[in-house]
């Protein structure tokens, strides 16, 4: 399974996601973007069942935009995460539950940065750092050692590189490229991809 990683800093949230799209034993595609921009202050990284991820995130994304159109103001990152959780939980009790693992990242001018970890059972947790997928298992201790509350964006990017390097070293599944995006008071920005080549530098 693919990896998605999230880190919350003092005034930003950074997400990284590997860019492979596996199909059975084959890599179908190596430049897939799993971090979806929902608005200028909200990102959702999603992994899990092939069709479900895109279908679910699009459903959530369009409904959050609809809310903004109807009310003239946007859902806060916290509200957006709760809305996502509620939908996932409702679908869990049907025959067509979505098999998706999510990280919801947002920046709110009043509430500050917000990172929410949601799994396929709709377990929802507000976290300082989090990860999904097999690759994510290798990241826990890296976060514990290097994360602190006054993290800068450069430091966070360096932690992402450490995680990617560890995944590429120890995980048997090849994940050669990670997309990185950050959300802060200036909106959403895509950073340079972390790849096997530029990790050597």
């Amino acid at each position: 399974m693919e990896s998605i990683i999230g880190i919350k800093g003092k005034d930003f949230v950074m997400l990284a996601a590997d860019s492979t799209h596996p199909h059975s034993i084959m890599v179908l595609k190596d430049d897939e973007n799993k971090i979806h921009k929902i608005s200028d202050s909200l990102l959702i990284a999603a992994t899990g069942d092939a069709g479900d991820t895109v279908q679910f995130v699009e459903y959530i994304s369009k409904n959050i935009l609809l809310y903004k159109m109807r009310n003239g103001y946007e859902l806060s990152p916290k509200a957006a995460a709760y809305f996502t959780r509620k939908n996932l939980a409702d679908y869990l009790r049907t025959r067509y539950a979505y098999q998706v693992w999510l990280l919801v990242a947002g920046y709110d001018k009043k509430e500050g940065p917000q990172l929410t970890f949601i799994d396929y059972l709709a377990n929802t947790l507000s976290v300082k750092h989090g990860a999904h997928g097999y690759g994510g298992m290798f990241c826990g201790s890296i976060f514990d050692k290097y994360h602190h509350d006054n993290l800068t964006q450069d430091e966070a990017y360096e932690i992402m590189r450490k995680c990617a390097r560890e995944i590429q070293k120890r995980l048997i599944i090849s994940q050669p490229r990670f997309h990185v995006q950050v959300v802060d008071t200036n909106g959403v920005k895509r950073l340079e991809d972390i790849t096997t080549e530029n990790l050597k530098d």
Partner: protein
Amino acid sequence: MALNDILKHMPSINDAYNDFKACEELSFANLTQNKVLSVPPYCNPVENLAKLQEGNSDVKIHFDHGTTTLGFIYQGGVVMAVDSRATGGQYIGSQSVRKVVEINDLLLGTLAGGAADCTYWYRVLTSECRLYELRNKKKISLAAATKIMNNIIYSYKNSGLSMGMILAGGDMNQVSLYYLDSDGTRTTGKVFSVGSGSIFALGVLDSGYKWDLKDEDAYELGRRSIYHATHRDAYSGGTVRVYHVKKDGWNLISEEDCLNLHRRYQAEKNN
């Protein structure tokens, strides 16, 4: 919005199940409403249909399966190449299947997986694309066409459909390539190959692929990739068909028996 007009009529899977309140009463609703497929008249088709396909079952159903199809995008457009064999289990059902579906004069699609599923849903897609043209007085974009197909396929997710489609076509003055499958995947990319022979085709395709390929070299790369798949994969064979898709429409480049290709390539190798 036009797309919404189409989508709101799209049935959910619940409607399909409700057609079978009583198991003995068969429904033929799909003849009049082509997007509501009658699911097999028993509960949980995924689980129970699998039983009919197992080796130790008294009733055996073999769906047509093995295939090699490919499509790649390059400097001069898209090349699509396919074989033409249909197999049901160990049996070769046909050597003359047309696995490239000509949706209209701009769009092409390839067919892999369950032959019945693919041909049926391509027929539905073709009609949807034509209806879009009649409603909106313009050709449908590939993005919209694949989205319609994907939404239909996704509503039948986990009901036992088996399809892997590569679609190519000109839209908005450019050529694009999409991959769709019965898991509900819909994605764009540069190189796709689907079917039991895809692992063999990709070996040749990936090592010869470049963006700057000349047209003739691109056709030959597609043809060669399929030929090598027909050689290694018992479930692929027959005729190798190559198509070229450009912004203003598609062309059939060649149709050659894989045995002739084999003789030619072997002769080249021995020289």
